[in-house]
């Protein structure tokens, strides 16, 4: 009779092996480490302030997650921010719209810009990369041409509440971002629309043959991307109290870095809002923590780059193990 040795193998729970969890753990370690190096870093004041500064990128990163999950990309978001910022000021000063109407108008312009992206991508079948590179130049050029480089300043006091005010101590725009994060997370996780995004990203032809309205879904996500850029433009103008035609330059790279760092595959088919949020927070707090510790500006960019590469390596090694 053999004595059966009962071996108890310790199985790592699945949720621990997810990319997002690993990222969250790295984030906590980094926060802790930076907090040790600098006593101003983990103060509520600083963290809330960083929340304020990361809102513009965060707002755009939410629909960008949707776009990348479908296997597309939107490089024109920075230019749309610039265009909407200009249209906000321009329609208020030159067209004479009352300021609330000017705000709505600039959001509409953002949505329209995204809609045009989506339209050409779905109807004319131009690859998203090409189309959004083209509209990046087009929308930036429109912003320059319309504004003729005039800045618009002198907004009324109430306008600055979004960008510079706080509600119960929390920066206003951060509250808006938090609400939208929750909504985006629910949409992605619990609705058929969210499910359709994953399906389209995993296999677009199969999705089409499964009677999913692929074109309509894509149109919606690109429009949302443009709309979010318009919202980010509103927050930005409110925060810096002026409009400039070079606003938003480079945003697309920051947004995509946050989304990819959060575990969304650039090839589409996987990704979560939760991951994007962690990626966003990680980049912002890394930059801030390093700057507070005395690391000079250019070196923080190096660190962000290294973090991005490490994240992609971790994600791909997890992917390989899963397969």
């Amino acid at each position, binding site marked *: 009779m053999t004595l059966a040795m009962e071996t108890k193998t310790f199985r790592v729970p699945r949720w621990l092996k997810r990319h997002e969890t690993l990222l969250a753990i790295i984030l906590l370690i980094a926060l802790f480490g930076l907090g040790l190096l600098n006593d101003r870093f983990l103060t509520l004041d600083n963290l809330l*302030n960083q929340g304020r500064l990361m809102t513009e990128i965060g707002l755009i990163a939410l629909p960008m997650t949707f776009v990348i999950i479908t296997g597309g990309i939107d490089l024109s978001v920075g230019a749309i921010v610039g265009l909407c910022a200009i249209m906000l000021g321009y329609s208020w000063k030159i067209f004479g719209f009352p300021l609330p109407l000017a705000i709505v108008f600039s959001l509409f312009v953002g949505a329209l810009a995204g809609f045009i992206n989506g*339209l050409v991508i779905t*109807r004319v079948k131009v690859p998203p990369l090409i189309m959004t590179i083209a509209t990046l130049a087009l929308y930036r050029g429109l912003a320059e*041409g319309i504004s003729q*480089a005039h800045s618009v300043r002198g907004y009324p006091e109430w306008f600055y509440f979004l960008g510079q005010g706080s509600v119960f101590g929390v920066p206003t725009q951060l509250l808006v971002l938090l609400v939208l994060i929750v909504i985006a997370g629910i949409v992605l996780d619990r609705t058929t629309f969210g499910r359709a995004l994953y399906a389209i990203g995993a296999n677009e032809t199969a999705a089409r043959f499964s009677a999913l309205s692929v074109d309509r879904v894509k149109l919606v996500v690109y429009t949302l991307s443009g709309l979010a850029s318009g919202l980010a433009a509103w927050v930005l103008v409110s925060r810096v109290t002026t409009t400039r035609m070079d606003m938003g330059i480079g945003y697309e790279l920051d947004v995509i870095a946050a989304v990819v760092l959060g575990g969304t595959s650039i090839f589409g088919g996987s990704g979560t809002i939760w991951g994007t949020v962690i990626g966003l927070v990680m980049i912002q707090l890394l930059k801030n923590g390093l700057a507070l510790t005395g690391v*000079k500006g250019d070196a923080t960019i190096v660190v962000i780059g290294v973090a991005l590469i490490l994240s992609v390596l971790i994600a791909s090694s997890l992917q390989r193990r899963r397969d």
Partner: protein
Amino acid sequence: MKTSLLTTTAAAMFALSFTAGGASAAGKWDGADDLPTSPLACDASGAAAPAAAKPYDGGQPTNAPDKAGKEITVVDVPKLIGIGYFNATSKGMQDAAKELGNVKVTTDGPTEAKIDEQIKFIDNYITRGVDGVMFAANDPVAIAPVLKKALSKGIHVVGYDANSTPDAREWFVNQAEFNGIGKSMMDSMAKEIGEDGSFAIVTSTFTTPNQARWIAEMQAYTEKCHPKMQWLETVEAQEDNNLSFNQATTLINKYGDKLKGLFGMTSVATPASAEAVTKAGQCGKIAVVGLATPNAMKPYVNADCVKSVVLWNPVDLGYAATYVMRAVADGKLKPGATSVEAGKLGKLSVVNGSEILLGPPFIFNKDNVTKFDF
């Protein structure tokens, strides 16, 4: 159905852009700001109408800790780091810090002249807790909220080179009177290309405060004293070397023989324009006048491509800014003061309420350019 939707959308988009473009084509943009100008007299005396003394219009810090005589840590956030001009101002600050003995100055800033990045740098230093912030603004209005935040935390704020709105800083060290620069630039150009020559301007961006001020003053002075000179175009080059070169070359190709002179409004644009003129083989045919550091212009001045370079001493500018910061921290420079002691520069006078004047602009030419090393 699908095609008509696409064509209508495309048509609507084009229509929108054309109407928008057309609506704004009315006002031709030339790089000047909208503030009032005060051109100097046309003759060599260059005397301006005496301006009434303006009351102090700067901001003040709240509950600034008393650091009289004690060591202070100051951060300098220029428009961007890595160009000769701000390396020179930084050197001046380090010289002053060494002389004073109780000032520690760090220069840190974005690698591109972007206002959003500059705001983030200043914000981080506020959180770190410095005693003073010195800045050269990329945008006068956008930088104001973060500077006011610094003031509210008891941090002293002194600007140099490019101003912010007056209430966002305590003092601004102005390198030269804006109308003085306007006069020097236009007089130098008129001397080289004649009273009916035509010129173009290469600037940083249309909203950078100091360049916009200088162009506005140049315009006013030209209308007053050189009315027959023709301004062709102003282009932006963002303090980027390559872009300045490309823009200057484009201007040369676009206007051909009509272009007689190029203005470089930044220390990056002027050598790049001189290079463009040299590469196009137009040395001596197209005059290049502008603001630049002597080192950058030595090859062109020695080759007789550029006759004169207008500047002030940026090393002195950084030096003076540091002395002003020390005087403010010591409580020796209060609102309403009419002058401040600035070490080897002597007594500098307060003009325009809260600006401290470095002195008249300096003209570098073939005779003296070799004497300087910055």
